[in-house]
Each structure stands twice: as structure tokens, then as C-alpha cells.
């Protein structure tokens, strides 16, 4: 089996950062303008 776990980790971290960042942005936007 090829050793490419680093790419897996990078993709999972990247996706988590994107989704978490947008969630925080949206909820904060709602709080400040809500």
C-alpha cells in the first residue's frame, strides 16, 4: 500500500479549516449585525 497518509491529513485539515472558518464568519456576522 502506498505511503501517502500526509496528503490525507492535509485534505482533511484543509476541509475542516474551510468549513469552520465559514461557520465562524457567518455566526459572527449574525451576532454583530443581528
Amino acid at each position, binding site marked *: *500500500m*502506498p*505511503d*501517502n*497518509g500526509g*496528503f*490525507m491529513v*492535509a*485534505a*482533511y485539515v*484543509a*476541509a*475542516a479549516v*474551510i*468549513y*469552520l472558518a*465559514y*461557520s465562524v464568519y*457567518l*455566526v459572527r*456576522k*449574525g451576532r454583530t*449585525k*443581528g
Partner: protein
Amino acid sequence: MTPTEAFERARRRSAVWIGIGLLLLATVYVRALVFTPAEVVQGLAQKIFYVHVPSAWVAFLAFGIVGVSSAVYLFLKDPRLDLFASSAAEVGMVFTTAVLVTGPIWGKPIWGTWWTWDARLTLTLFLWFVVLAYLVLRTAVHEPSQRARYSAVLGILGALLVPFIHVSVYLFRTVHPMPVVLRPGKPTLPGSMLATLLFSFAVFMLFFAALLWHRYALARLADARAHAAAERDDA
């Protein structure tokens, strides 16, 4: 309860569901990384599948919503449809960004390159730019009904790309794999991987619904305030 209070309540409730969605997203990670077998040929990089594919499905669902809401808007001229379409476009943009980021990270170890101008990849990038244009257009036009009409047309055109992207792997010679679930006949994926994929898809759908609900509540809130301000100015 005034409309503003109702939107405010929707904003607070949907924020809680965004939190629940993020927690469930963490369970997808645990299930995919710990409790799902690694694929023999591709190794651990294949597990990118469980975030890449559901992100793509949800992004396409979002742009389907944009297309349908925009088309119905052009008939009914109900501003709520315009706000719903624009909310779905923004949230769909986030999911498409995740697709375009996780795809190259998967492509590098398997195809040997981060990017190639393959039909599906190119069309997905093109869709991303169309949605960006849609969001930029909305900031450039200030008259609400004109903004809604222009963006509805662009929203429909963007949504038309979605079926092309899905069948692009059949229409063109491409390096991107064929569908393993949404295909004619039965899924070709082993049961354990299919179960994780479907669980991931359900979670991504719920997370998307929470984000869309929240974004729409904010759009309605902003709209209600803009109307109230316009009435004050008139008075």
C-alpha cells in the same frame, strides 16, 4: 412577534444547528479515518473521498437550488426567492471551494499532478468563477428588483453547468474517475466504504441545511432592516 423578531429567532436557532453540524462533521472524520478500511491500491489518500465527494454533491445541490429558485423568481417575482437563491449560492461556493482544494491534494499522490485541464476539473473551476461573478454582481447592483432579475439569469446559467459536470466523465476523455454511486446500475463501492460515504453525505446535507438556514435568516433580517430604513427616509 414582528418579522424582525422571527428572523432573529431563526438566526439564533440555526446557529445552534451549525454547531451540531460541525460536531457531526467531526464524527464523519472519526468514522472515515478510524473505522473505514483503507483502499489497497491508493492507500490512505483514497480517504479524501469521504470529504471530497459529499462536498461536491452538496455543492451541486446548492446550485440546483439556485437554479430552481432563480427560475421561479422570474415568474413570481417574490423577493424571498431571490434571497434564498443568493444564500444558497454563497453557501454552495464554500462547498465548491472545499472540492477544489481537496481534489488537487488527492490528485497529487494518485495522478502525479496537483491540477490538469481535464473536463470535469475545468468545468468545476468554471462553475466556481460563475458563482463568484454572481456574488460580485449582487454587490454591484443596488436596485433590489433589478439585482434580483440580473442575478436570477446568471444563477440559472450557472446551475446549467451542474449536469454537464456530472456527465463530463462520460462525454470526454478524462482522468477523473466515473461515478461509483450516482450511476446507472448498482453502486460499485464496497459496503463498508459506501456506508461511510452515505453517512458523510447525510451529515454534509444537514450541515449545509443549517448554514443555508442561517444565511437566509441573515438575508431576511438585512432585507427587513433595509425596508424599515427606506420607510423612515420616506416619512
